[in-house]
């Protein structure tokens, strides 16, 4: 019977008190003659009563809106990661040896002056890697860092500290070299700009990475000595020193060696490897011990 089905459907709303007078009257007329619907109504009334009874003692949990607002106003993960990184870079930039900043800038400036006076663009190519390598050799280790104890006491791991300093100082070195190159445009044609930058970028990166790694393994002074030695080796005019050094074997070996310093891609790849090794070494306690002043 369709009418019964209809009322059956609307009984829950009737029990929930959701129907108006006319609708209620219609249903009540049907209820009077339908025992099945009366039983259903009893059931719905029991359900309604039970749900109300269960919900009556419930109160809204305190301070949920405040917690939601805390959640809403908390910086999201990406922003807080960015803030943490910025904080680390700023703190570590302050902990790097202060005299390094003006010293590097001064040496680069003198290099530019010499290059301009002597009209030798190549001088920047010669100087930039040396400046960068010495600043990176002083980056890490007890003899360079009065605040080292403090740094190591913080929860930031050594490799992160090293990476932060490496980023800050390398960025500074790159800016210095770029600035110097731009000044050289007084004597060099603008078309050479890219060539000049590519010229020093590879050696600068590689020598910096090498100096950093050696400073962790052997100490700052040894690192500078080795890095400078390797770099200057290519400029030694062996044939001019004496006839006993004027051999074809040595000459071809030196040609290969100079070629090595002019292969930007190879140098950059090797730099990545050295930097990875340096970061790994920074976390080894044994290397931190050997870098005590002797």
């Amino acid at each position: 019977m369709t009418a019964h089905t209809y009322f059956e459907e609307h009984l829950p709303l009737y029990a929930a008190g959701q129907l108006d007078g006319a609708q209620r009257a219609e249903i009540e007329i049907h209820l009077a003659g339908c025992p099945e619907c009366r039983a259903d109504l009893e059931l719905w009334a029991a359900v309604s009563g039970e749900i109300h009874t269960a919900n009556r003692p419930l109160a809204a949990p305190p301070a949920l809106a405040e917690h939601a607002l805390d959640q809403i106003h908390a910086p999201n993960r990406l922003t807080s990661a960015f803030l943490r990184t910025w904080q680390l870079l700023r703190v570590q930039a302050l902990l790097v040896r202060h005299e390094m900043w003006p010293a590097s800038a001064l040496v680069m400036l003198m290099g530019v002056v010499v290059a301009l006076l002597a009209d030798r663009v190549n001088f920047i190519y010669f100087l930039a890697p040396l400046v960068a390598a010495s600043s990176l050799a002083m980056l890490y280790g007890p003899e360079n860092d009065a605040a080292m104890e403090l740094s190591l006491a913080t929860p930031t791991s050594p490799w992160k500290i090293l990476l932060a300093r490496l980023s800050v100082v390398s960025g500074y070195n790159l800016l210095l070299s770029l600035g110097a190159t731009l000044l050289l445009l007084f004597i060099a044609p603008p078309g050479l700009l890219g060539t000049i930058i590519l010229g020093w970028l590879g050696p600068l990166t590689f020598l910096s990475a090498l100096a950093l790694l050696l400073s962790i393994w052997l100490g700052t002074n040894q690192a500078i000595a080795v890095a400078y030695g390797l770099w200057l080796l290519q400029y030694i005019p062996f044939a001019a020193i004496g006839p006993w050094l004027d051999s074809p074997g040595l000459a071809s070996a030196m040609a290969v060696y100079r070629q090595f310093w002019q292969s930007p891609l190879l140098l950059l790849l090797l730099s990545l490897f050295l930097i990875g090794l340096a970061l790994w070494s920074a976390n080894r306690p044994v290397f931190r011990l050997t870098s005590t002043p002797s």
Partner: protein
Amino acid sequence: MISYAVSNAITEKRPWPIAMAEPEYNVELMRRIAAREDMALCELYAAYGQRLYAYALRLTNEPALAEDIVQDALVIVWRTAGRYRGEGRLAAWLLGIVHHTAIKAMRHRSIPISDEMVTGLPAPTDSPETQTQANQQAQWVRDGLQSLSPEHRAVLELVFYQGLSLDETAKVCNCPLGTVKSRLSYARQHLRGILSRQNVEEWR
């Protein structure tokens, strides 16, 4: 044919028509939340917190989870308040967000329906000496509700406690009106089965 005509007549006389406009102060409250006013969210919670929590608890049977769900729902309300323009009742709109959040949270934790969950509900408030037949019947109804799925409990809670129409209930549950009706019908048969079985055991 007759029932169709009667049905139309009753639908037109429904106390809460589907497109009923919400009081201006509620629309204004949502406007203030959309304008990022912290105080407005607190006011909204003061007005609707109990209902929303009751609904989340009905779905989950777990007070701590229900709290998390309401909090997450408030965060969603904060982000989507601008989409509410008073075209339906605010309570239904809010319950829809709680429903969505709860279903997601429960799917995530894949909560099994078990007897232990009954302990999550408030204990009966009556003292032992007033445990009458009526209380025992209430206990069966309570157990019967527990044995229903969250989707079926949701429909009962929305209709009987939250005072939502069947259309609003369908919107909150994000399902067709026919599904709401069949869930009510299923709940009726399920509970009637339990009650008649209990009555036979107790009184015959």
